């Protein structure tokens, strides 16, 4: 397995990627757009883009990922895609009848410079229907950037400040996480007794129930009315800097809703931070229900610390998720010694600071030294592991090849997970999500210990 990867680390300076740890912006934009109720994402580019993104999302969620395309041909590439987009808008509303059409661009249409706002403005849109757009050039950032850009599009097209005094409600921008995570975050805020607007919100869309009937626009998703009303909220919590801070900052500028940028609430510290932020802003005491969950989590962490302490881990994936996971494993006394994201750290035009700096600061206070890289690829990650092996890998499905090659257990977390199911329904965020992650990590480590134990060392109680 991966027998062509040499152990010797040589600097590669071409800027190319071998076994990437990221994909392109439009995928994230499509995912975000599915988090608007009644929305059909539209890919303005060649058919292949739309097809690839739908396939990838469907494989991860095992759900329909509906989207349309401008079906570019060479002619459109030369003369511009205005006619294609106009035709598409007309047909989408006539045939599929969504409430919102969310157009995102591709590398093709960014390269030829199609002016999407002008095209939308000069197209007749049926009464009561909305077309929004986001520029998502595939040659900048990653799928996480695309998620952020489409969420910014929601703010710039829809959010409105219509009241003189802000409402006692919080906006939550959840970041590029699963519907199960979005549900859990909404539950936590609800238990806190605080009214919230979450956008995008793919729960109820990409985890829609089986009813025997297909509906193209399932019940879930943030409604247009909610996103509009986000301009009247008292606070925006942006969870995950890379996926959420830009739209939160835009909402602050546009509607004067102050933004607090937090980590994706993975693990005890980041979940604590979420509750503290809510408690302070809304003067709401944290109810026993959540304190109980927290106490259970701490109970688990202390009771099982010897399963984890000092174990070396390699973590890769999307920056916000990797940051949360790093904090979680550090809180268990583990040593994350290889940490990598494919997303460039602190992309241009983004308020997100350096991924590497943030991770290094966390490691420093824990006294751990590690390889840390933003904009890296899995070829590099694998070479790190060959030179300095770990006890565990945490990352998405693409890590399975490295895990097999090096005979290291893998815990699948993040996007995409293509070879296991149910993950998108169950959270990794909040105290309960932390319990689930700890269970997965400990199962992986102990299954390995069982597998490798000699008969005489094979234990009943561990």
């Amino acid at each position, binding site marked *: 397995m991966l027998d*062509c990867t040499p152990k010797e680390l040589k600097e590669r300076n071409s800027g190319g*990627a*071998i076994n990437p740890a990221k994909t392109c912006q439009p995928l994230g934009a499509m995912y975000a757009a599915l988090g608007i109720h009644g929305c059909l994402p539209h890919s303005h580019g060649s*058919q292949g*883009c739309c097809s690839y993104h739908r396939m990838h999302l469907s494989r991860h969620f095992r759900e329909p990922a509906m989207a349309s395309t401008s*079906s570019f041909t060479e002619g459109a*590439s030369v003369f511009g895609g205005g006619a294609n987009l106009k035709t*598409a808008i007309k047909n989408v509303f006539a045939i599929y009848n969504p409430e919102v059409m969310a157009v995102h661009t591709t590398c093709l249409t960014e390269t030829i410079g199609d002016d999407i706002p002008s095209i939308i403005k000069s197209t007749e849109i049926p009464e009561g229907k909305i077309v929004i757009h986001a520029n998502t050039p595939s*040659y900048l950032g990653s799928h996480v950037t695309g998620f952020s850009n489409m969420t910014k599009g929601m703010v710039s097209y829809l959010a409105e400040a219509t009241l003189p005094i802000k409402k006692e409600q919080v906006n939550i921008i959840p970041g590029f996480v699963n519907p199960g995570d979005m549900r859990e975050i909404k539950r936590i805020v609800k238990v806190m007794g605080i009214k919230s607007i979450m956008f995008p919100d793919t729960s109820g869309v990409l985890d829609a129930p089986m009813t025997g009937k297909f509906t193209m626009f399932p019940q879930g998703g943030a409604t247009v009315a909610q996103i509009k009303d986000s301009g009247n909220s008292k606070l925006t919590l942006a969870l995950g800097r890379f996926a959420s801070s830009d739209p939160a900052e835009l909402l602050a500028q546009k509607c004067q809703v102050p933004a607090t940028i937090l980590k994706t609430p993975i693990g005890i510290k980041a979940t604590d931070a979420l509750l503290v932020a809510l408690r302070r802003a809304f003067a709401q005491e944290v109810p026993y229900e959540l304190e109980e969950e927290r106490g259970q989590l701490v109970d688990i962490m202390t009771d099982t610390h010897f399963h984890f302490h000092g174990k070396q881990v390699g973590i890769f994936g999307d920056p916000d998720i990797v940051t949360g996971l790093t904090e979680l494993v550090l809180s268990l006394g583990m040593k994350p010694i290889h940490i990598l994201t494919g997303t460039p750290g602190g992309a241009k035009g983004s308020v997100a600071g350096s991924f590497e700096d943030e991770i290094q600061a966390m490691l420093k206070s824990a006294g751990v030294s590690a390889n840390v890289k933003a904009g890296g690829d899995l070829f590099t990650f694998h070479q790190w592991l060959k030179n300095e092996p770990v006890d565990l890998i945490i990352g998405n499905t693409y890590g399975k090849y490295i895990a097999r090659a090096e005979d290291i257990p893998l815990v699948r977390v993040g996007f995409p997970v293509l070879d296991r199911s149910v993950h998108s329904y169950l959270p990794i965020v909040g105290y309960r999500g932390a319990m689930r992650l700890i269970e997965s990590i400990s199962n992986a480590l102990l299954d390995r210990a069982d597998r490798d134990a000699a008969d005489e060392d094979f234990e009943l109680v561990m």
Partner: protein
Amino acid sequence: MAVTEKELQEILDQYPSKVQKNRTKHIFIKDGAESAQVIEANTRTIPGIITNRGCAYAGCKGVVLGPLKDMVHITHGPIGCGYYSWGTRRNKAKSDDPTQNFLNYCVSTDMQESDIVFGGEKKLAKVIDEVIDIFHPKAVTVSATCPVGLIGDDISAVARAAESRHGVPILAFSCEGYKGVSQSAGHHIANNILMERVIGASETEKASGKYPINILGEYNIGGDSWEVERVLEEIGYTVVSVMTGDGSYEELKNAHTAELNLVQCHRSINYIAEMLETKYGTPWLKVNFIGIAGMSESLRNMALYFGDEALIAKTEEVIAREVARIEPLMEQYKKICDGKTAFCFVGGSRGHHYQGLFAEIGIETVLAGYEFAHRDDYEGRQVIPTIKTDADSKNIPQMQVSADERRFRLKVSPEKMEELKQKIPLSYYAGMTVTMKDGSIIVDDLNHFETEEFIKILKPDIFASGIKDKYVIQKMGIPAKQLHSYDYSGPYAGFNGAVNFARDVSMGFASPTWNFIVPPWQDEPLLTGTVTEEGVA
């Protein structure tokens, strides 16, 4: 059950007029009494229509090149295209030298904004250098994505320069996603360059074994090719190369030494089949290794081509043994499947091939179509001269080959060829339509709207399609079978494949999970009681 002309019209009438006018030409109800039912195919999908189609890059790098295991495939473009075509198609391969099997690797130039502005040629050259330095591959391919053509990167020039720098063949494919109207354009582009640069590139003049053949258009999804080769090798054939499942640069170079070319997926590889005939005098045989009947007939046709009595006898012996072995296994599945109906909408050959296998387990295909086929895949190759070339097909280079002076050799005499053509589909494909029953629907580039509408009318028991449809269909309570990826099962080709397929389809019907869709309380009143003369009790 069938769709009437009136019902079909009612579906189409829901479209805006321009769409209606267009889609009308892509759909028809089979009527054997009509002499030639024409379908429009390989033309543009209208923007805004939710199509299953992909792009030229997907057809070139994703389908044809991707399975070639000993070449490093570089995607020149932003990260997405390379990423999505990495490991997602299930084209399996094994190699005696695992350090020369690059299937689990994805190499992309990961173009950034500055590359788009200032050009990506230098970056591509550097990535090629790195790939050669790290992997030492037999050969390298470079596939272009949309922006590459737009900014004018000359990937052929970069490849030529790198080739002379390193002495390793570097093949450039201008398969930008916007070319053509679907994956089909990419197949053609890949076919051209493989023919030009790889096939015949070895010094070998004669194949090493008896009855040397190439298998074209077989991508070893789920191990299909291995199951077919198991049988072919037992009968006595020598498989020179497979295009391109579990294929390699090393084997492909020798493809000119075959005595016969088998064509499984006509759409994606017929260009090479035709060029091999022109250049080396080797005819091609349309085969269908899906289903017991398809497999058996294909084996018999091959034996007839070579005309060797011992080969014919051995073929019959193997068929008899295999059929006797698997028929009892099929029987149990037939009981589950018998009398059911299917929709079969796949890419460019399976939409046709699987109808036979469905029939063998008692399932009738009531609607079929292709995602990216041409008219000949529906109507038969005799229509090729009448197909109009439009602006979209004109931009795919039409490669002209001529007889190779040194290597051209008619494998069968013209007289023998004519005689064989009466009996077997030699250098000919009759298409899908002819084998379908009257009243069944044939749809080109079936889209989401039509899928829903046809399901409402025909209520099929199973829908064979791809991942984008799968969960849509299953939400309706109908089992959906992925025939691109086989739902991660397989092989489905050949004798053992037929059993696997029958088992998997039966599983789709027999799964207890479907019974839970309706909650038990839904048909039960919330309160129960009786009304008596005294009132409600």
